């Protein structure tokens, strides 16, 4: 059933391509319907899955027998969480880009192609298939930003595309080497992730190939110091583009780290555990610190994404159940919250005021002019700070719990990152919406276009998701926990030593 998320989405791309060129309205509706259908299928399929702790095969047919590749789609609890996230992000992204007038049909075609690729990555249990979907997302990203973006869009788009491509090529090198070694050990060619997760790669081999694959994926997860694509990319992207970049694309990277790099090379992870944690914490603190001094509203959110993704990587590096649980939950939580923040800044504020400069925004008193945006941003900001009651709290708390037992000093340091996080969020709220600076000019005395129904829907949907998971984390934890707890799962090898500390 879940496979239909992919098929429906790509079918939507086809339908969009066949639509007449200038019918923007039809394009929007087709895109929205496709995204909703995908989202519903994701939800229903996820709920129907009986045992989230096990990998449930959806379809497995031979694809290229000579190299052992299968068309193998399956899902476990982690896939379920991320597929649901993708569904939510896709729908809200379309709601927040309802006002795209320039080449609407092409915009949504690229948008849905990206979403389809993302669904594919989360559901692939064949490494080659996963890689195919992973690379498939690069091209739509590039065109979405370069064509429909703002501020230095071509630079941002090319940077993102090249970073992604270099990352995926690092992965490719590692995969080819691993494929050859695994072939020697298994006696037959295999690209099946579950099979590869049981191969005992030589320790020395793991030590050098793991960082290659991990970094290759982590580039897209915004790991410091390879994060520089993220702020520029987010800022340059159109609203829906940054929502997807922060919401799901960065998760692709983190997911690849966990599902491919860590599962295949557990010895490699143990060797590099400290380095990953250190880089993750560096990202948390650095991202937060830089966010604190930005003048451009979107850069604040862009750097905050780097900071929050640091928690995901830190959680991965703990190699204990609670840390990994937290990491996966943080992927979901950040996807929702960052999407919301970008929605507010990109759509509600920038599309109306045409500026993101705090110096200009300070004089506008947006909190009074567009109160809905102000309130939404406050809620999103509070969620992003990690206040109890929102999903971010549960996630980051678990990550810190997990990290405390392994790297106490680094954990304290990341606490500093959280404090700075509070500071930059409050600063953004104050400067962006509730400044008491006197109005500088009367340029903006004309009322802004009121917040549309589409925006309200999107905002409420994302806030709701974050609240529900914050109050009832069990809903997702019931999917995530069994994946790491079961001794039979593909992660078992990863946790054997790390969890005992």
């Amino acid at each position, binding site marked *: 059933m879940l496979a239909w998320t992919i098929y429906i989405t790509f079918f939507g791309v086809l339908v969009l391509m066949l639509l007449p060129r200038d019918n923007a309205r039809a394009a929007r509706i087709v895109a929205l319907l496709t995204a909703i259908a995908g989202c519903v299928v994701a939800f229903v399929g996820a709920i129907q899955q009986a045992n989230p702790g096990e990998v449930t095969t959806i379809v497995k047919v031979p694809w290229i027998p000579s190299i052992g590749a299968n068309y193998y789609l399956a899902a476990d609890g982690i896939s379920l969480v991320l597929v649901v996230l993708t569904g939510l992000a896709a729908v809200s992204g379309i709601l927040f880009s309802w006002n795209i007038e320039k080449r609407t049909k092409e915009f949504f075609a690229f948008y849905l192609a990206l979403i389809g690729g993302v669904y594919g990555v989360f559901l692939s249990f064949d490494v080659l298939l996963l890689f*195919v979907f992973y690379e498939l997302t*690069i091209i739509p990203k590039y065109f979405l930003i*370069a064509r429909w973006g703002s501020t230095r869009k071509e630079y941002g788009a090319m940077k993102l*595309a090249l970073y992604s491509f270099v990352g995926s090529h690092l992965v490719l090198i590692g995969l*080819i*080497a691993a494929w*050859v070694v695994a072939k020697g050990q298994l006696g037959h060619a295999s690209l099946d992730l579950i099979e590869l997760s049981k191969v005992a790669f030589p320790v020395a081999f793991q030590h050098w190939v793991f960082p290659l694959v991990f970094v290759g994926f982590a580039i897209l997860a915004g790991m410091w110091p390879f994060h520089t694509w993220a702020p520029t990319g987010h800022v340059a992207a159109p609203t829906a583009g940054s929502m997807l970049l922060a919401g799901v694309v960065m998760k692709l990277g983190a997911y690849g780290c966990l599902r491919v790099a860590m599962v295949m090379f557990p010895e490699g992870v143990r060797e590099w555990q400290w380095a990953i944690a250190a880089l993750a914490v560096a990202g948390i603190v650095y991202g937060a610190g830089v966010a604190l001094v930005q003048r451009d509203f979107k850069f604040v959110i862009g750097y905050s994404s780097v900071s929050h993704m640091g928690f995901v990587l830190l959680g991965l590096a703990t190699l204990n159940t609670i840390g990994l649980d937290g990491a996966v939950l943080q992927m979901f939580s950040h996807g929702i919250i960052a999407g919301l923040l970008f929605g507010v800044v990109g759509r509600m504020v920038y599309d109306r005021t045409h500026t993101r400069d705090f110096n200009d925004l300070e004089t506008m008193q947006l909190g009074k002019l567009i109160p809905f945006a102000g309130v939404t941003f406050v809620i999103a900001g509070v969620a992003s700070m990690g206040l109890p009651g929102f999903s971010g709290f549960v996630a980051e708390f678990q990550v810190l719990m997990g990290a405390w037992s392994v790297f106490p000093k680094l954990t304290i340091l990341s606490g500093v990152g959280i404090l700075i996080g509070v500071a930059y969020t409050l600063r953004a709220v104050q400067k962006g919406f509730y400044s008491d600076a006197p109005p500088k000019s009367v340029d903006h005395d004309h009322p802004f276009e009121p917040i549309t129904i589409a925006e309200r829907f999107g905002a409420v949907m994302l806030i709701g998701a974050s609240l529900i998971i914050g109050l009832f984390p069990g809903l997702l934890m019931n999917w995530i926990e069994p994946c790491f707890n079961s001794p039979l799962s593909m992660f078992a090898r990863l946790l054997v030593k790390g969890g005992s500390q």
Partner: protein
Amino acid sequence: MNPVNYLQILQLAAPETIVTLTVLVVLGADVTVLRGKSIAARFNIGALLAILGCASAALLAFMRHIEANLFNGLLVVSPSSDFFKVALLVLTIFTILISTSGKFTDHVGEYLSLILLGTIGLMFLVSTEDLLMVFIALEFASLALYILTAFNKHNEKSAEAALKYFLFGGMSAAFLLFGFSLLYGIAGSTNLREIALGIAGKGFDPLLLVALVTTVIGFGFKVAAVPFHLWAPDAYEGAPTPSAAFIGSGSKVASFYVLAKIFTLGFIGAEGSAAYHNFLSGWTPVIAIVAALSMVLGNLTAIVQSSVKRLLAYSAIAHAGYMLLGILSNTPVSASAMMFYVITYALTTIGAFGVVTVVEEATGSDTIANFRGLSRRAPGLALCLMIFLLSLGGIPPLAGFIAKFFLFSAVVNAGANLGLLWLVILAIAMSAVSFYYYLRVLKAAYVEDAAEAAPAIQVPLLTFLALVLLAFLVILFGVAPGLLTQFL
């Protein structure tokens, strides 16, 4: 010595014979019936005849399953060589289809028949295991290619390109012949298998090294590998675009096929090793160097090109580098991976050149700037271009990606202890570079707008049909490579 049985030769060389007859028909029709008709009509009818001939030859080669070896390897017919003839004929058909809209010449019959003559040379090239025949077939095909390059008489660059191509080609032929003569001297035979026996057990003598290097030089020119690549960018740029497509596709397929044959059949025992930290002199390290240089130089130079044809030429040099990896790793798996790569590459290249042809005819030049706004001016054409360039860049699920995966995994698998991994790392790193310049062209087509209110581009029907079919094949072989690998 057995008396020569001409009937048997004719039977074994039936596909070539059919194409030869087609040449006569096309030429004849053009000078008689079609005289006085418009160029477009002559092109269309001539193309139809040529395609009919090629298609029937291809069908024949595809249907028959014979193994034969005439005159001690001079003419070898096997299902494998027959499949490559089919591939060559298909490539020729596509080349003809994209040239039908050409306005660069009024010598339609001659142009079409030269393409066919070139194809005949290439067909003989893939069906021989004898150095003499290799040389004759290669020169026969090359002569046709030289003339095809010079065919645009309105363009000075065309003549310059052809002269350059011809001089370089002539020199490479000399090198090749020199190398072959040494081989004959060492082994006492021109037959590849006998050469292998002849040089086996003789150790590694300097004469063999000279023979080896000169052979590599000779073929290096033909496949445009660095440092013997200098003719390629000029030839690609100056030649009429369909001719460039033919040089970049059909001629490449045949050259790589025969190159692989010479090295893997003829130089058994003189492989050496190109493994990291474990170099041994032989032919593989020589090719490794040429391959590495081609990948690096081709990709880096392509970045700065403003003419799309030159860009494609440098990308062709880079791709030749990747393909050479398949030869030097020297296993049956890597050889078939290499052939998969060459064939899918050839299909993609014809497609890319086809798009360039249309844009060039419509806008007058092939610079990247002329591709601006293509997604609005000709959406279908732009989509085809995107598919071809992304495939060349190695983006899944297109054929170019899966070809790279096949090739690189086979190469790594071939070297013991991942010894050849360094070459693959280099290749993958360079392929990441290549993505940048393909994206530059696509950026012009999709992101930038045309300078003024540029009119829509009318894409000639036949060309468009060929492009759509090629794009379809590129996707098909990417999604279901088994359809092609079963023959390799």
